[in-house]
């Protein structure tokens, strides 16, 4: 870098303002990130789910076959995240690297439902029948495991998703920072409950609920179309109401 380059760099640094409230910016950015993540969970981001799909097929289908051949087996899939690479350290000293999330230890609560059982389980929770088939084609491939469950299925012909992941910590704070259009409260069991939507994106309206319970983050989402984006809606509103989605997310039936 020559002197002129340094001068230009100095000019750009000294001529630009500094943020008045950095913490507020970070909190707002994280809230947007959580909202974005919730929508992507429903399969609207094919790129991120493509990886999940490949692993999910193996995680969901192979163990099922194996389980059917082993009387007495729970049939639970292996953890589909176990092959995820460990993040490496960043080159910047001020930037910590992401770390892999914790998985349940021996003796702790585990997910006791497989993806293929989710549509029927949801029907049981809401007390009415509308469940269709589990989506098995990419990017909606599901995954089952002791600490992760991803199930995309049809409910009255529309896309519905249930995702259970380990709680990454600060559940109450995550709930309260759910972003615009969301409401955080405490449910009857005393767990943080976040409700969001209905929101419309890419021509499709969606709504969902997340409950942090038993060391897990349980999310249920309902769309008003067969897919998460770029398809014609088939119902005026998502067929599962926010109350029903909150009951699904807050149910203890998912765990053993």
């Amino acid at each position, binding site marked *: 870098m020559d002197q002129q380059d340094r001068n230009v760099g100095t000019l750009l640094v*000294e001529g630009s303002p500094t943020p008045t409230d950095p913490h507020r910016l970070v909190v707002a950015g*994280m809230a947007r990130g959580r909202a974005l993540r919730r929508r992507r969970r429903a399969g609207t981001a094919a790129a991120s789910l493509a990886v999940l799909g490949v692993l999910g097929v193996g995680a969901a289908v192979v163990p099922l076959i194996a389980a059917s051949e082993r009387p007495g087996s729970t049939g639970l899939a292996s953890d589909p995240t176990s092959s995820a690479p460990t993040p490496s350290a960043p080159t*910047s000293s001020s930037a910590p690297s*992401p770390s*892999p999330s914790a998985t349940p230890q021996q003796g702790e609560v585990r997910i006791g439902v497989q993806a293929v059982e989710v549509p029927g389980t949801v029907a049981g929770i809401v007390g009415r029948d509308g469940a269709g088939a589990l989506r098995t084609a990419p990017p909606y491939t599901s995954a089952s495991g002791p600490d992760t469950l991803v199930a995309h299925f049809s409910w009255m012909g529309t896309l519905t998703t249930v995702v259970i992941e380990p709680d990454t910590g600060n559940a109450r704070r995550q709930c309260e920072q759910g972003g615009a259009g969301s409401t955080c409260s405490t449910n009857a069991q005393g767990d943080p409950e976040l409700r969001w939507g209905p929101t419309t994106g890419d021509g499709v309206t969606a709504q969902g609920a997340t409950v942090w319970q038993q060391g897990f983050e349980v999310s249920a989402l309902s769309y008003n179309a067969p897919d998460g984006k770029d398809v014609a809606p088939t119902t005026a509103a998502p067929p599962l109401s926010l109350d029903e989605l909150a009951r699904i997310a807050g149910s203890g039936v998912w765990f053993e």
Partner: protein
Amino acid sequence: MTKDQEFEEFALARIPQLHRSAWLLCGDVHRAEDLVQETLAKVYVRWHRRLGRPIENPAAYAQTCLVRVYISAQRRRSTHERPVESAAEQAVGDGDTDLRLALAGALAALQPLDRAVLVLRYLDDRPVAEVAEVLGCSQGAVRNRTLRALDRLRAVFGPSLVDLLHHR
């Protein structure tokens, strides 16, 4: 430390640089804050992804993400929005207001990609090849845009670009 806490720590450490870059790109404090928030949201999603390749250099990833979010937003704006008479930027209350206004005026005359080149080359100190990769253009185009942007800055701040700095 949870992933959320790790991200928050990372974001707080990167905010000054991200905000500076964002302001240099768009020239407006409020748009800059929006740009930073959108960037943090995208990095947050990537940070929490449980599968796939991890972020090797989160700081560089965030800066690249910021520039791409800006370029993408500019394309949408140029399609859907009509320019109106620009309102004067309100003073933020720190630094040298004269310098900031002069810099904002000089940058306003540049095309979005020229501004992006300036930020990536001289604020982030990225080599030409890397800037070309981030912006999806040739190295020759990056050099041309760099020359054009520097000419504009020289017209405002003097041939050596230090005149105004020396008068502060």
